[in-house]
């Protein structure tokens, strides 16, 4: 198994190029998840707590968007950010920022849809009490988000999983430029197509290790929080 051995050698060598790829991947995915969280959770809460014509259709569309094809999102953002596109003046195409936008679009519906369901379920439980305590609309939203925080971690983790594993959208809008927009997933795709399996496997190991570590940390934080808050 020479490729596996080379992969471990590469990881242990502390290759700066490899660590730059890992750092960029984390920066892009965590930024996308951050944006998806600060927009997605309030959006989910808003849909959970309000009643308006067409609400059911909005929920169906939001749920369906969890399965958005990444290449399609990449294509749409590519068209929007290209020189002749409506957002071309921003000059973001083939930059890490464009990759954050692409992953953010993929992550947002996942976080919003799971948050909507979680908060709506909790609202069913809390409605009478909060109404009796005369808690205002914003107070209700904040209370539900706070009290559902341990469940909402799952939504954020699902979003991170999607972002970290994604390749189709970011390869289109980022261009997979070495040292600039090359991430772990785009490198794995490229190196595999070139036949350099040791780097691809090394990056794969790092990617899986990061995903497992972040999920483990979140699980520990959730356990500790539940023990303290009930």
């Amino acid at each position, binding site marked *: 198994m020479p490729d596996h051995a080379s992969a471990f050698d590469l990881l242990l060598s502390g290759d700066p190029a490899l660590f730059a790829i890992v750092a960029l991947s984390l920066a892009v995915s965590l930024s996308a998840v951050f944006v998806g969280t600060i927009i997605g959770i309030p959006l989910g809460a808003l849909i959970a707590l309000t009643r308006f014509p067409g609400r059911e259709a909005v929920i169906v569309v939001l749920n369906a968007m969890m399965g958005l094809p990444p290449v399609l999102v990449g294509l749409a953002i590519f068209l929007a950010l290209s020189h002749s596109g409506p957002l071309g003046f921003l000059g973001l195409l083939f930059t890490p920022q464009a990759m954050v936008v692409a992953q953010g679009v993929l992550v947002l519906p996942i976080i919003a849809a799971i948050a909507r369901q979680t908060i709506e379920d909790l609202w069913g439980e*809390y409605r*009478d009490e909060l109404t*009796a*305590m005369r808690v205002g609309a914003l107070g209700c939203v904040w209370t539900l988000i706070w009290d559902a925080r*341990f469940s909402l971690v799952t939504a954020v983790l699902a979003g991170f999983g999607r972002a970290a594993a994604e390749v189709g959208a970011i390869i289109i809008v980022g261009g997979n430029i070495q040292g600039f927009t090359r991430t772990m997933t785009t490198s794995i795709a490229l190196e595999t197509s070139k036949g350099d399996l040791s780097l691809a496997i090394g990056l794969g190991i790092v990617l899986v290790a990061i995903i497992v570590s972040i999920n483990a940390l979140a699980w520990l934080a959730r356990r500790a929080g539940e023990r303290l808050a*009930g």
Partner: protein
Amino acid sequence: MHTPDSNLPIAFEQASVIANGVTILDRVSLSLGHGAPTVLIGPNGSGKTTFLKLAMGLITPSSGRISWGTHGNGRLEQRAIVFQHPTMLRRSAASNVRYALNAARIPRKQQQARVDELLALVGLAALGDRPARRMSGGEQKRLALARALARDPTVLFLDEPTASLDPAGARAFEDVIRTVVSRNIKVVMATHDLGEAKRLAGEIVVLHRGRVLETSPAAVFFDSPKTSEAKRFISGELLA
């Protein structure tokens, strides 16, 4: 000690509640005034919970009207309710009470003293740091009562407050109710427990199939109920 406020009397005038075509309360007319607790009794599905929610102002009548106070301008903020199955917020017991104090806009500086006072009142002074959802059913009921009292209500509604509590838990809760009553807070409660009704009630309201069958002072009611349904209920018969 409270001075009676403008929430009393609570006057129901031909108030009905109809949901999904089902009549839950049917043309209820009565007045709840100052004094000892008013206890609603009646079998399951008789409309007790809906009556309490209506009196609390959480729902509006489908027809008829309800008013609070002589001039009909009672303040919603001075009413509180403890539900049959109170929901504990996911935080400590003390934080649950603090949340209610915040909702009632009690100044932050006064909150800690009020939290301590209310937890002591319901016998939970030693459990302030415990996650509310990890408390026993009886403790959760008492915590819900502390939370309801946070807004310093003048009228308190209790829905089956001792249902599912063991005798010791029920006795502890009844003791707290007596303390609340001694503070000049009007208590209106629903119960299945005739013994509890005898021990606490100043006035009895019998509900059956959404209608008020009779309203009497407790002593008179238990001595000589006016209606055959009330007589059967007191004797332990099942009312259809």
